[in-house]
């Protein structure tokens, strides 16, 4: 097959290319008047589905981990890591592994509250929803929830280092990243880091 030479990409064509767009600021920064208009709200409200009753036959934990990462990248994750979660006796359900997916964020979703500013959150929820649903269909438990220590877990999974503010800094995108909700699962995996 002929070689697939991709298109040229110029890194300086970033958010500045929107400076002539009179509606861009509204898109990025204006919080929605009705949250029901946002896909992020739709996905967050959705309950988890059932775990498939028959477990799929797995390969080794290392290979299963590479498949989980490949699947997450296919769904749009820029960086994927797997961290061993501390066992917490106070919680009814314990999960041995956390899957951390990171997406590129032109704008910080914590301050850019418009539908456009929340696009990284939307992309992250798309990835975590489908990936956790896929793990449940493999016959293992998987659930997503916002994680206060997501930056620490991401650093523990080898996705980057923490800066002075405790935020994840990655080699590829610096601090311009959004860490999606952590997927907690009992799928046999091999932790990174």
């Amino acid at each position, binding site marked *: 097959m002929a070689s697939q*030479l*991709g298109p040229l990409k110029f890194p300086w064509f970033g958010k500045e290319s*929107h400076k002539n767009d009179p509606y861009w600021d509204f898109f990025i920064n204006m919080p929605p008047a009705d949250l*029901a208009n946002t896909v992020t709200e739709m996905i967050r409200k959705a309950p988890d589905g059932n775990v*498939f009753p028959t477990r799929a036959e797995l390969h080794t934990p290392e290979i299963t981990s590479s498949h989980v990462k490949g699947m997450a990248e296919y769904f749009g994750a820029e960086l994927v890591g797997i961290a061993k979660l501390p066992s917490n006796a106070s919680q009814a359900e314990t999960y041995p592994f956390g899957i951390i997916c990171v997406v590129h964020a032109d704008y910080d979703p914590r301050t850019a509250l418009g*539908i456009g500013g929340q696009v990284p959150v939307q992309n992250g929820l798309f990835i975590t929803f489908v990936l956790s649903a896929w793990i*449940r*269909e493999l016959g293992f438990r998987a659930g997503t929830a916002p994680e206060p220590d997501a930056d620490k877990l991401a650093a523990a999974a080898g996705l980057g280092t923490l800066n002075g503010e405790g935020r994840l800094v990655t080699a590829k995108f610096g601090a311009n990243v959004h860490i999606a909700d952590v997927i907690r699962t009992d799928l046999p995996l091999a932790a990174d880091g």
Partner: protein
Amino acid sequence: MALTAEKVAQPFNSSTEPNHAPVETEFPVPYLGRTVKIVGPHVNVDMNQSPHPKNSRGELGKPLFNWYRNTVSQDPLTRVSAPNHFADRRNFLVNVINRSSNGKVNPRTVTVDDPAAMARHIKTVALYMGADVVGIAKVHPSFLYAAGGGRYVQDGTAKDEYQSNSPEELVRRFPYIIQAATAWDYNKLQAHRHHIGDAAYHVSQMKGVMVLKALEGYIKELGYTALRGVVTPQAAGVAGGIGELGRNGLVINKNFGARVHMPDPILTDLPLVADEPVDIGVEDFCKICRKCANTCPTNSIPFGDKVVFNGIEKYKINWLTCYKLRPYVHEHWGSCLTCAAVCPFTKPNVWWHNLATWALHTCPYAARPALVHALKWIDDKFWGVTRTNRVRWLGYDSGIKPGDQACTVAGCTASHEGKASSVSGDMGYYAPLKENTNRFVKRDG
């Protein structure tokens, strides 16, 4: 070109009258490019008479009904990505999004002084959200589903206060259609008729549904109405310059070919400027190529000329024979995709492909047949008449015959009892469907 009047359009109820002269005066017949023409009275499509709704009512027979309603896929990824083959619908994202309650239109409308700037903005927004192609079409009543036929969003609902409006009333109030399309992964599509090809198709569908839902919400936040389940995607795609309609019944895009997913478009009153239909040479190519017709396992794609169907001059595929194959192959794949995969326009979105479509676009009409013959020869030579590549992806392997068990993952030391240890060769396994279906499906032409 010889045209056959295959169907004389008849109105099926009083709310869906053909476009008579007064209507044509108010809504001039639109130019849809060289591949499709509105040449006669057109009866708006009743969504209740389209394949999936007919099947869900059991009108296409038990095997198809059971395949559609009662079949859980054996493949975990298919269970979370393909409509109607999930074990638990809560694990299927499209279902979650389409069944969510609709938000309200923002009462604080953003003033649009320059529709061209808004058109550029809305396209940038769609691309920023993840769409691969965006087009804006000026709406015409013939693009809309019939009133009373019911809005249609697969796995969801599109009910709103404009439910009972006729197509003409909707067009007067909502002049534009926004179509955002997502492209299937090219490399995975090479393993079509396999779960790998299904992944390419279904994941792009999920992404497309999410992008359009987010875009719908954003238009409402701008203070304008966005209606779903109203517009025929194919019409919007052709009118909005997404691509041209091919012999295979698919809209063919200049960058991605036939591998674009166009879920339910948005009908809106947001002030915009519409795009024009494009000419990338599909008309000239499809007259000569016929690769999709030759390789279609069910002979559902015509070899002959265009026909006039319901007032529209186009290539008319036989959707029923295409559909009827599905229950018999669902254990091995969900979506056939042969016609999209073999289409010479379906290539990676890279410079050499774009150069070929640019050459077709700029070539004078008289010289195009010679160029098409040359391009088709190159396509046959380098990519083959059918796709036979062996594709491996995350434990999936298209070289394994459906039903056989084997682990071909390099380095795997897990004990897979009862599985063959290895499968050799670089050829994907493709069930010999054509030879089998030729025995009982009559070809036309």
